C-alpha cells in the first residue's frame, strides 16, 4: 500500500515536473569552429505551437517530464528550406532550465543542449 503510494508519487513527480527549454538562435562556439545563427528557423517541441526564430532571437517553451522531441526546419535568407532535423532527447542533468542552441543542432553538434541557470 505504502509502496504503491511512494511509487505513484515518484511517477507523478517525473511526469509532472516542469522544465523550461530556452530555444536560442545565436552564433555559438563549437569544437569544430563557430556555428552561425540561422537566418530563420522554425522550431517545434513535442506538439507545442511551432515557433519562428530569427538571428539573436531567444524564446522559451514549458514542458512536463523528461523525454521530448524537437523538430526544426532551417531556412536561408531567401526563406528557402535548407534542411530539417527531428531529434528525440531526454533531459538528463538536474536543472529546471535548459538551453537549446538551434545552430548547434543544425550543425548536428554533440552539446547542442546544456543545462542553464539564470543568475539570481
Amino acid at each position: 500500500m505504502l509502496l504503491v503510494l511512494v511509487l505513484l508519487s515518484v511517477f507523478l513527480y517525473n511526469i509532472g515536473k516542469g522544465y523550461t527549454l530556452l530555444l536560442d538562435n545565436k552564433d555559438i562556439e563549437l569544437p569544430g569552429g563557430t556555428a552561425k545563427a540561422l537566418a530563420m528557423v522554425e522550431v517545434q517541441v513535442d506538439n507545442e505551437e511551432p515557433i519562428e526564430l530569427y538571428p539573436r532571437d531567444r524564446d522559451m517553451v514549458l514542458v512536463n517530464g523528461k523525454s521530448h522531441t524537437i523538430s526544426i526546419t532551417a531556412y536561408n535568407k531567401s526563406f528557402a528550406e535548407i534542411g530539417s532535423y527531428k531529434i528525440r532527447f531526454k533531459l538528463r542533468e538536474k536543472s529546471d532550465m535548459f538551453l537549446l542552441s538551434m545552430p548547434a543542432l543544425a550543425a548536428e553538434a554533440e552539446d547542442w543542449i546544456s543545462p542553464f541557470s539564470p543568475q539570481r
Partner: protein
Amino acid sequence: MKSVEKKKKEQQSLPERFILLITEYPVPALFIVISILAIPASGFSVGYLTQELITRLVRNSFLVLSLIIPIMAGMGLNFGMTLGAMAGQIALIFITDWGIIGLPGLFLAMILSMPMSVLFGYATGKILNKAKGREMVTSFILAFFANGIYQLIVLYGMGSVINIGSDALVLSRGYGIRNAVNLINVRQVMDNLVPIKLFGINIPLATFLFITLLCVMILWFKKTKLGQDMRAIGQDMAVADAAGIAVEKTRIIAIVISTVLAGIGQIIYLQNIGTMNTYNSHEQIGMFSIAAILIGGATVSKAKIGNVFLGVMLFHLMFVVSPMAGKNLIGSAMLGEYFRVFVSYGVISIALVLHAWKRLKEQERSRAGLQGIATEEARGSEA
C-alpha cells in the same frame, strides 16, 4: 423513529407533509426564504447565479463532505478539519516549489498531504479522547493552536529549516512563505480537464465526478463494519465499549479520515481559486464548511450527503447575494457583508443550542426509561 415517521408521511396530504418537512428542517426552510427574498433584491441574473453556485459547489462540497464521518461517530462538528486544510496547503507549497505542473502536480499534492493529515488527525483524535463530552470546544481551540504551529512552520521554518528553492515563494528576508502563493501550475487543472458548457454555463465535470466518487465511498463506508461500529459509538459509547468495540481507536480513525478528506478538499478548493493566501485560506474554511452543512439541515449528531449539497448551495447563494442585496435595500454593501458573517455564526450557534437542548431532554427521557431498575445493585453498592 424513522419507520414511524415514514408511516406518518404516507397518511398525510401534501400540505401537511410540507408543514412536517418545514418543522423537521427549520434551518434550510429559513434559508430558502431568505434567498427567495434576497435574490430579486440583489438584481443578479439567473445565469450568473447558477454559474456562481456551480463554482461554489465545485470548490466547497469536498471540504464539507469531510465533516460527515465524525458526526456519524458522535464526535460532533469537527472544527479540527482546519488541520487537514493546513496539510493540504503545505503540500501545495511543496509541489509549487518543485514546479510540478498540471494534474500530476495536483495528485502529488494530494498524496503528499495524506501522511501529514494522518499525523494531525491522529493527534486530534488523541486529544479529543481526553476531552470526551466537549469535543467541539476542544477541536475548536485545537484549530487555533494548530494555526500557531502552522505559522511557526511556514512563516519561520520554511526556507530556513525546510529547504524551499523558489524565490517566488520565499519572502525577501530569505525565509518564510509569501502571503500569496500563485498556484498557476495547478490552477483549475481538474476543473478544466473535461470542460463542458451548457447554456453558456461551464461545468467542471471532472471535479464533479471526483466529488461523486467520494460520496459513493462515504455511502459504501456506512455499510462497512467500521462504519457500523462508528454509528454504534456515536449513539452510545458505553454500550459499544461493553460490546468490545475499540471505542477510542475508532474515534481516532474517524477523525483521521475526516482530516485526510479535509486536506484533499482544501487542495481542490485552492486549485479552483488559483491562488493561496498562505495565512488565511485555511482559517475560515472550518467555520464556512460547518455553517454550510448545518444550513443544509444537518445537526450535531446527524448528517446526510444531501445536507452537504443543499447546504453548500443555500449558504453560498446567501453569500453571493447578500452584499448586493444589502446595497440595493439599505444602500450599504458592508451591511450585507456583515449580515452573512452574522448568519454564519448565528446558524452555528442555533444548531449547537438546539443540540444541547435535545441532549438534556434525552437525558431526562433515558432517566424515565430506567425507572424500576435497582440502581443501587447496578452501582455495585457492596463495593
